[in-house]
């Protein structure tokens, strides 16, 4: 997927990996999140992604001209997962919207694991 922003002078193309990096970097600042998990991994088998591969836990696509972001994350045991996820949604939506100027329709958080 490539996001496209048009103006009178030309077009801006944002590639999926760029958006995924933005998302990945802003998520790791979120409190309670301790890692990203690869989106394709089979259930029950979660490996923590290294920093440089963070974007593997992010999926970005368009719906009705707006961005939809799926996240696959691992959280710290003992945190309130709903609150942590809510914070991540707020933070990601804010960062992506301010940095790209595109509207984020949804952020779906998939908790793939807890770290004890």
């Amino acid at each position, binding site marked *: 997927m490539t996001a496209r922003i048009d103006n009178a002078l030309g077009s801006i193309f944002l590639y999926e990996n760029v958006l995924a990096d933005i998302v990945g970097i802003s998520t790791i600042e979120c*409190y309670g999140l301790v890692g990203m998990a690869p989106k394709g991994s089979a259930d029950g088998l979660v490996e923590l992604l290294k920093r440089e591969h963070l974007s593997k836990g992010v999926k970005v696509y368009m719906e009705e001209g707006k961005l939809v972001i799926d996240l696959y994350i691992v*959280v710290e045991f003992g945190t*309130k997962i709903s609150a942590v996820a809510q914070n991540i949604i707020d933070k990601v939506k804010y960062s992506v919207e301010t940095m790209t100027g595109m509207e984020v329709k949804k952020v779906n958080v998939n908790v793939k694991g807890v770290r004890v």
Partner: protein
Amino acid sequence: MNKTISIDGSTLKRMFINAANTLDNNREIIDSLNVFPVPDGDTGTNMSLTMFSAVQELQRLKKEEVGDVVEAIANGLLMGARGNSGVILSQLFRGFATKLKNYRELDTPAFAMALTEGVETAYKAVMKPTEGTILTVARETAQKANEVCEKVSQFDEFLEQILKQSMATLEKTPQMLKVLAKAGVVDAGGKGFVYILLGFLNAIRGEEIVLNGENTLKLPVEEAVEDIDDHSDMQFPYCTEFIIKNPTGSAQQLREAYQGLGDCTLVVGDERVIKVHIHTDKPGRVLEEGLKLGELSRIKIENMKEQHRSTIESEIEQKELGIISVVMGDGFMDLFRDLGVDAIIPGGQTMNPSTQDIVKAVEGLRAKNIFILPNNGNVILSANQAGELTDKKVFVVPTKSMPQGISAMLAFNSMRSADDNYSDMKKAIENVKTGQVTYAVRDSVFDGIEMQEGDIIGIAEGKIYNKGEDVDEVALELVSALAEGGGDVITIFYGDQVSKEQAEALADKLGAIMPDCEIEVHYGGQPVYYYLISVE
């Protein structure tokens, strides 16, 4: 002196409840500091709600051993965690609790150790800790606690020292985190942490903090900053809040009804009351949905775009000179406004504004130097007091009447310096003599004159001069007396009980007696006084 060197479970419980109350009492201050990531201003509310979830848990406790208390705190915080700061808080106390499970009593080293463990636990739960937040404040506080715990065994001194450290670190947060510096605030979560320590300390000192009560130790209040971003494209500009009493449905039901209506939605409550906070573009719909569940109370709708704009304005417009005047009567208000007064405080003879009213007006005025025209002998004192209570430079021009205030305004020149204006204005009022025409409210003897209820009386320079039955007669006599020592401009301000025709008729009569004088007539609209007359 308080000599607490160890704390047991019930003391710890008391400390924690105190901390929650202290935090809640200062919730709005903390809310006003929020800038990140979405400048919504709810950190204080989130932290407070998180703390109270733990307080509820504590109140359910049957045993009050240290282990039970810390476990209740940790569980309560976990379940009630809200927002980033709430989650961090819950982690801090989760770590705090793990180390203390088997203690019966805590001394300062144990407290320091638990705090350190709390900080470690809190840091573990984030990949990339942001410095300049509550995490930093908690960490440096724990370090300080470790440094001093061996030497200081008394809890009040111990807590005092670590509280000081936390405040010092809090002050440094803007240097560590750019968004804070940009907004000119300290970190909101960190501030919340400071309040928690403050609550602990007060509990040890034996002071009980009740909700919404006055705080014993006042922390410096930061300036409220709404926002650092451009809000012109804000999607949900109306911050809508209200309470539903005796709701017929659940908070959950309402939350579902609000899906898609806005963001920052907060719907909490129980069978007795539901509290709603939402940012929306359809405040009407939000209220409608609430009404379905019952009676609404404490409704508040604010346009955040507007708030934002006024914040911007306040940064830009800081005038050199500003004027505040205490005025009574709609005509006088217009006159003072036309003459360039920036703010008017309604009040006068029968209704003296308080020092607080004046301070508020001074604080609200965006000017560096502020002149106050009290326009009443009784108000001068409050104005002077107000001048001492504010950081702004305040000049009180001692005007004793509204006509004097008008003369002072005429002498004012916005192009000149504050000091020059002050001396000009003071000089201008020296030449003004004021007469007032009113009626006696009861039988009395004043300044050697015997009056009966309903008599018309003339007052010259604050002293009763004459009395009579006819308003015009009394006024004429009074003006003649005032003009005796010289004066060539006579201004008549007529009150709300007098018609324009009556006032002009009086002016004509005056003109006949004193042909050399220039006579002006203005509508003052003041109550009680038929005429206020100035001679200069």
